[in-house]
């Protein structure tokens, strides 16, 4: 297909001429370094429960005032001036009651400050950075981690650094990407206000440690584990750097830190366990372990010389805490070998890709809701679940990579919205007895589009489009849930990037509107018979592993097949996607009816083009996107996430973009909004993403309305 370039280049030449005006845009971003730099070195006074707008009339049930006891609900911090949790409030709604920035004045936003973490890839970390960082804001401070887990506190009004604590994570610990989505904080109810670590910042690291430091000084908490650290490799087995890594903020419920870990996909059936563990937030002692294949035997850890059950489904994304019930809701992923299932245990089949509710007081699972049966598509649950009241019932909302959105009863896991059933699904030739003929789907709302047709094939010219049509016709494809095949490729649509991924959704609890950004991208996959697999599992590799898209060539050792994934199904010569745009969108959904209020492509074509050449097209094309949204009482959605490197404000009621600015690097992270001294800020980190192919950066950037 080397003939493709001719017409494609013609097209690029023409579009370059069309859009010279957009060259002016990066200059705007440059000026942000001229931000005010007045220092305010005053010791920060972390505080919770700042002047509170009522977030929503929900069942917080007086948890904000009652005296904390380790076996009862503990006080929740309030979102507003602060952004005290990864998901904004304790419920992970990503809704802020702030309203200083409105639809009327958002166009006047100007840069407030830019902070540089100075954590940029060096050596073998090159091409592996995907920081995805979302700071917390508590009191006067922003609290965050960097890609390599450096804990940092920054003055929320000026961007001046208060302190940093570098745990010294080595490059070899990077699994699929150097990622630290965020940190969590915990206020020790038994400590006095000025005690060391009364308020502590807790993170999980790529080299599988839990680290607790004092929120005011960054000093490790002496009372936590050993010198402020807990080793998560304990009970996991042979220590293979990069195979077992924490990338999500831990969830803290009733004084218990709950964490899973990312187990690097597709390596081997004999992989680190997906065990979920709870630790005392003050002492770091193991409170319980939930090993889904041996919950009773391993509740207090495996016996000497044993490990937690290997290869079980893990949780790499963020859980959400329910102080009221004492539950934590955990979106589990799939087993370690994603695309072949016949060797899995019944326990794995039961729990893989399920939302699991665990009672943190006992470490036992209360209920689970499975979103895909016998998952052979890497349909991990990637999105953090959100707590809300659904028509008077305490509920948990769960988006999936397949695009389905479920609303479940928090106490029982019973669906509160209709769940349908696909039947007579194809079972394929590879493992027809394993593949499920039925699958659940949400009949309340799905982000998923109709199945692909040949006419959906794309390119920049008739020739690459023709090549994609040939590929389409050559592949196995029977629509959604086409099972894996080895004789020829199969099309997986939606691909493993979603639907909804780790950015999750935002819920405007006042207006009753759910905001969901999503990907709309297929993968083109093929199982590779064992004797043709050339890649080795991570525990047999020499030196640093290669970067690259997840599953591009994974060994799946122990199963009869390796896996080759063409993520996003792109033309191998031009890099242009084989399917027509949009590749991603953002949608508003009426929480009462589940109906779409508006839906639009997210992301312009400015950075995309054949052979990786930016087209500078300012038109909305709808790019792949990673990272979620914030929605505010001011009627605005703030979101970056698309691969066009723009950060934008969108009208929650119409979907119209009211403001945008060019970031110096990819904005694949969830934004936040907060207030200091009566001034509302919006913030996003611009740090890039290797898989999304956006430029790497180290910027933490804030905008606000011009000072009075």
């Amino acid at each position, binding site marked *: 297909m080397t003939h493709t370039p001719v017409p494609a280049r013609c097209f690029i030449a023409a579009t370059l001429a069309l859009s010279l005006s957009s060259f002016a845009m990066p200059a705007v971003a440059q000026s942000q370094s001229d931000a005010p730099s007045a220092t305010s070195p005053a010791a920060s006074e972390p505080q919770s429960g700042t002047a509170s707008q009522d977030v929503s009339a929900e069942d917080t049930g007086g948890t904000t005032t009652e005296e904390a006891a380790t076996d009862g609900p503990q006080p929740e911090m309030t979102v507003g001036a602060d952004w005290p949790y990864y998901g904004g409030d304790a419920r992970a709604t990503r809704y802020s009651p702030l309203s200083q920035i409105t639809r009327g004045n958002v166009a006047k936003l100007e840069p407030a400050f830019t902070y540089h973490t100075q954590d940029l890839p060096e050596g073998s970390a090159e091409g592996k950075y995907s920081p995805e960082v979302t700071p917390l804001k508590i009191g006067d401070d922003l609290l965050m981690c960097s890609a390599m887990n450096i804990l940092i506190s920054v003055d929320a009004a000026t961007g001046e650094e208060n302190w940093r604590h570098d745990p010294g994570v080595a490059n070899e610990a990077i699994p699929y990407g150097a990622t630290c989505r965020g940190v969590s904080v915990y206020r020790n109810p038994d400590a006095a206000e000025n005690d060391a670590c009364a308020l502590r910042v807790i993170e999980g690291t790529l080299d599988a440690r839990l680290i607790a430091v004092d929120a005011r000084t960054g000093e490790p908490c002496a009372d936590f584990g050993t010198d402020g650290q807990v080793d998560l490799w304990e009970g996991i087995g042979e220590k293979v750097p990069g195979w077992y890594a924490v990338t999500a903020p831990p969830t803290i419920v009733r004084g218990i830190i709950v964490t899973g870990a990312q187990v690097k996909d597709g390596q081997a059936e004999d992989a680190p366990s997906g065990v979920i563990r709870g630790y005392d937030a003050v002492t770091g002692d193991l409170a319980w372990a939930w090993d889904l294949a041996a919950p009773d035997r391993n509740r207090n850890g495996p016996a000497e010389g044993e490990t937690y059950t290997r290869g079980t489904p893990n949780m790499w994304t963020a859980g959400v805490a329910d102080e009221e019930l004492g539950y934590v809701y955990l979106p589990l992923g799939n087993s370690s070998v994603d695309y072949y299932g016949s060797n899995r245990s019944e326990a794995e089949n039961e729990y893989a890709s399920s939302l699991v509710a665990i009672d943190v007081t006992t470490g036992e699972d209360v209920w689970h809701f499975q979103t895909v049966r016998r998952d052979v598509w890497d349909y991990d649950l990637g999105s953090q679940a959100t707590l809300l009241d659904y028509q008077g019932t305490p509920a948990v909302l769960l988006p999936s990579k397949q695009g389905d959105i479920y609303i479940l009863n928090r106490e029982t896991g019973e669906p509160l919205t209709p769940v349908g059933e696909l039947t007579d699904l194809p079972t394929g030739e590879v493992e027809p007895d394993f593949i499920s003929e039925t699958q659940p789907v949400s009949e309340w709302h799905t982000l998923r589009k109709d199945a692909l047709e040949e006419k959906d094939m*794309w390119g920049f*010219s008739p020739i690459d489009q023709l090549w994609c049509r040939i590929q389409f016709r050559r592949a196995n494809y029977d629509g959604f849930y086409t099972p894996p095949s080895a004789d020829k490729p199969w099309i997986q649509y939606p691909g493993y990037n979603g639907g909804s991924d780790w950015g999750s959704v935002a819920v405007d609890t006042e207006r009753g509107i759910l905001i969901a950004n999503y990907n709309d991208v297929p993968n083109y996959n093929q199982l590779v018979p064992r004797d043709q697999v050339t890649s080795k599992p991570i525990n047999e590799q020499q030196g640093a592993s290669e970067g690259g898209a997840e599953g591009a060539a994974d060994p799946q050792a122990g199963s009869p097949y390796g896996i080759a994934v063409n993520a996003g199904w792109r033309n191998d010569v031009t890099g242009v996607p084989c399917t027509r745009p949009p590749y991603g969108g953002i949608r508003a959904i009426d929480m009462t009816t589940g109906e779409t209020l508006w839906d639009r492509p997210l992301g312009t074509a400015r950075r995309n083009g054949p052979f990786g050449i930016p087209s500078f097209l300012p038109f909305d094309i709808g790019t792949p996107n990673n990272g979620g949204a914030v929605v505010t009482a001011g009627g605005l959605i703030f979101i970056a996430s698309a691969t066009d490197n723009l950060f934008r404000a969108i009208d929650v009621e119409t979907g119209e973009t009211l403001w945008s600015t060019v970031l110096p690097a990819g904005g694949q992270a969830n934004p936040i909004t907060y207030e200091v001294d009566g001034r509302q800020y919006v913030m996003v980190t611009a740090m890039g993403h290797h898989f999304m192919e956006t430029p790497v950066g180290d910027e933490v950037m804030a905008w606000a309305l011009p000072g009075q």
Partner: protein
Amino acid sequence: MSHISTDVQSETSAPVTDTIWGVKILGWLNVLLGLVIFAGGMWLILLGGSWYYGLAGLGLLLTGLMLNRYMLEAVWVYCAVWFGTAMWAWWEVGNDWWAQVPRLVAPTLILILVLLCIPSLARHRTKSI
């Protein structure tokens, strides 16, 4: 089609005065693209897919061959290919303009180039007659 092949024969018998490089290059480009699209198009037809590419490839190949012989009729053949393409493209994806990019942009660029050949082809015809 039959009158075109007659033209081809009458044209070959006419003495060629000199080479018009622009027309020649475009002619060979169309031959090349036509061959690729025709071959891929036949493959697609065998796989049970659209017939458009096989037909369009053939039209492009014919246009190229005729351009190489300085036949003004090449313009009419290509216009037919272009109009067929536009109608097919509208039938497939309507006003989804992003989806129209691979269908219409390159064929339209070639249309412009073919139309730019008209003066040269007309001059050549006058000379050779």
